[in-house]
C-alpha cells in the first residue's frame, strides 16, 4: 500500500452565500497517495477548480476541518493566465523556489539546480530567457508546470494542464506527470477533459457525480457504466474507445488483412458508413500500401473509397 499524503474526511466545499450557500461537493473524502496519478473528470462548472483550490488551502472549505498537510507542501497549476511585463521564463520558474529562499529572494546553487532541472524536464531550455508575454498558451502552460515542479512538494494539483496544448505536448505533459508520480513518488491530481488520456494514463479516476466523487481505476468505471452515465456520450462508444459510426450504406465489406493497415482501412470504411466484418458483399484485401478489390489494385485508400462509391 502506498502512503496517503493528502486526505480529507467528510469534506464539503462551495461558496458561502449568507442565505443559501452554493454547495458543489458534499461529504466527500478524497485521498491522494504517493506515487499515484489521479485524473479528475466531470462536466464543466461542476466545481473541479474549486475542489482543487480548496484542497490546496487557497479557499476555505464549508465544512470545518483542517487538511492533514501544510498547504505549502502542495504545488498548484491553475488555469488563470499570468501576465507580467518583462517577466522571463526563468524568473517565473524561480518564483516556485520562494518558499525556500530568504527575504531578499536570493537563489542558492541548490535553487538554481532545481530550476535548471525543471527547464530540462519540460524542454524549456531554449525559452529560458524569453519573456512570458511572448509565449504561446501551450508554452506558458509548460512553464507553469515547471514552476510547480521546482516547488518540490509531495503533492501537485493541476487544473486542466493540457487544455491549451496540441496532441504532442498533451502526451508529453501526461508522460512527465506519470514519470514524476512513479519516479519521484509524488501524489499528482489532474483535472482534465481528455477522456482518452485519462483512461490510458490515470492510476485512479475521480468522477464528479452530483456533489459526490466516484473513484476507482479507469477500467472498473468504464465497465460498470459510471462513465457512460455521467458523461452521457453522444456518439462515442466507450467500450471500444472509439467514435460511434452510423452505418448508412447498404454494402457490407469483407475485409482481409492484418496489423495497423487493417485497422486504418477499417477506420476509413467505417467513417464512410460501411459495415465491415468477416463476411460481406464485397471482398477487400489490404496489403502493405496496396488494396485489392474486385481484381483491381489501388495504392491509396482515397482511390479505394472512390471505387466503392
Amino acid at each position: 500500500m502506498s502512503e496517503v499524503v493528502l486526505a480529507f474526511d467528510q469534506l464539503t466545499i462551495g461558496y458561502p452565500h449568507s442565505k443559501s450557500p452554493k454547495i458543489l461537493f458534499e461529504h466527500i473524502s478524497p485521498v491522494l497517495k504517493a506515487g499515484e496519478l489521479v485524473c479528475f473528470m466531470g462536466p464543466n462548472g461542476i466545481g473541479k477548480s474549486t475542489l482543487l483550490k480548496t484542497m490546496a488551502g487557497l479557499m476555505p472549505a464549508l465544512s470545518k476541518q483542517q487538511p492533514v498537510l501544510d498547504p505549502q507542501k502542495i504545488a498548484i497549476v491553475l488555469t488563470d493566465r499570468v501576465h507580467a511585463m518583462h517577466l522571463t521564463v526563468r524568473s517565473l520558474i524561480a518564483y516556485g523556489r520562494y518558499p525556500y529562499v530568504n527575504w531578499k529572494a536570493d537563489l542558492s546553487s541548490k535553487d538554481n539546480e532545481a530550476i535548471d532541472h525543471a527547464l530540462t524536464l519540460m524542454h524549456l531550455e531554449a525559452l529560458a530567457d524569453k519573456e512570458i508575454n511572448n509565449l504561446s498558451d501551450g508554452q506558458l502552460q509548460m512553464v507553469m508546470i515547471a514552476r510547480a515542479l521546482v516547488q518540490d512538494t509531495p503533492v501537485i494539483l493541476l487544473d486542466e494542464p493540457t487544455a491549451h496544448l496540441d496532441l504532442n505536448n498533451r502526451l508529453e505533459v501526461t508522460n512527465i506527470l506519470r514519470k514524476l508520480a512513479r519516479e519521484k513518488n509524488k501524489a499528482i491530481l489532474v483535472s482534465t477533459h481528455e477522456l482518452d488520456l485519462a483512461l490510458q494514463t490515470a492510476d485512479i479516476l475521480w468522477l464528479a457525480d452530483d456533489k459526490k466523487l466516484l473513484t476507482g481505476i479507469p477500467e472498473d468505471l468504464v465497465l460498470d457504466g459510471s462513465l457512460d452515465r455521467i458523461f452521457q456520450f453522444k456518439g462515442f462508444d466507450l467500450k471500444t474507445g472509439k467514435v460511434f459510426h452510423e452505418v448508412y450504406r447498404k454494402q457490407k465489406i469483407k475485409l482481409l488483412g492484418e496489423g495497423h493497415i487493417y485497422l486504418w482501412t477499417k477506420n476509413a470504411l467505417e467513417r464512410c458508413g460501411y459495415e465491415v466484418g468477416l463476411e460481406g458483399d464485397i471482398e477487400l484485401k489490404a496489403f502493405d500500401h496496396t488494396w485489392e478489390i474486385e481484381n483491381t489494385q489501388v495504392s491509396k485508400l482515397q482511390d479505394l473509397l472512390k471505387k466503392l462509391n
Partner: protein
Amino acid sequence: MVKKAFLGYKWTFLVLLLVALFVINLSIGSVAIPPKEILRALFGMTTDNHIWKNIVLDFRLTKALTALLTGAALGLGGLQMQTLFRNPLAGPDVLGLSAGASLAVSLVFMAGTAGLQILPSSWSIALAASLGSGLVLMLVLAVASRVKDNTSLLIVGLMLGAATASLVSILQFASRAEEQQYFLIWTFGSLGGLDMGEITIMLLALLIGITLSVLNIKALNAWQLGDSYARSLGVNPTRARLMMIITASLLAGVVTAFCGPIAFVGLAVPHLMKLWIKAADHRQLVPSVVLGGASLMLLCDILAQLAGNSFILPINAITALIGAPVVIWIIVSGRKIYV
C-alpha cells in the same frame, strides 16, 4: 557578463541623469547666478552677492529637494499600486488617493478655522492626508475585487475621486475667501515653499516606503502571478496587501499634503522605468522608480521654470503634458501592456 555590464550602464545612466537634472534645476531661475557661485553657496562659502546664497539655499535647494522627494515618492507609490491591482492604469491620482488626501487636508484646515484646538501642524497634515489616501485606496480595493477589468476599475477610481473632490468643494464653499484662494493654489500643485521640517517628513515617509517595499519584495514579485499563486508560494496575502496599501497611501498622502495633488507622475514613472530597465523583478523596479521618479519630477520643475523667467507654471500643467500621452499609449496598445 555582457548582460551585467549592460544592466550596469542602465543604472549608471539613471544616477547620472538624476545628478545632472538636480544641478540644472539648481542653476536655473528668475535670477541668473553663475554656476561657480551656486557651488560656493552649496558648500557654505560666501558668494559675491550674499542674496545669491539665500536664493540658492532657501529657495532653490529646498525646491529641488522637494521635487526629488516628491517624484521618488510618487513613483514608488505608483509602482505599489500597479502591482497591488495588477493594473497598468493604477496610480495615486487616477484611483482617487490624491482626492482622499485633499479631503483629509481640507478637513484639518476647516477644523482649525472652526476653532477646534487641532493646530494644523506639518505632522498632523501629513498623517491626515495619509489616512485619507488609505481610506480611498481600501474603498477602491473593495470595489476592485468585484470588477475585474481595467476600464471598470479606472472608472470606479475616477468616480470615487470625483465624489471625494466634490466633498472638498462643498467644504471650500463653506470656508472664508482667503482659505479658498490658498486651496485653489494648492490644487495647482507646488513644489515651492516647503520648510525643512516638511522636507524631513517627506524624506522620512520615503524611507519608510522604501523599507516596507524592500521587506515586502518576495510578496511584490509573487503578486504578479495572482493571489492564488502568491498564497501557494507562502505569501500571506492579507499582510502583503496591507503593506502595499500602507506604502502607497503614506507616499501619496504625504506628497499631496505638502505639494498638492500632483497628477500622472505616479502612473507614468513605473511604465517609463519598465521600458528602460526591462525587468519584472521588484528588486530592480523599486530602486529604478525611486531614481526615475525623482528625475522626472526635477525635469518637470525645470520645464515649469523655462516657460518664463518671471513666473513659474503650475507643476500639474507640466506633469499632465508628460503623463497624458503615457496613459493614451497604455490604452491604445491595449492588451499588450501588463503590469
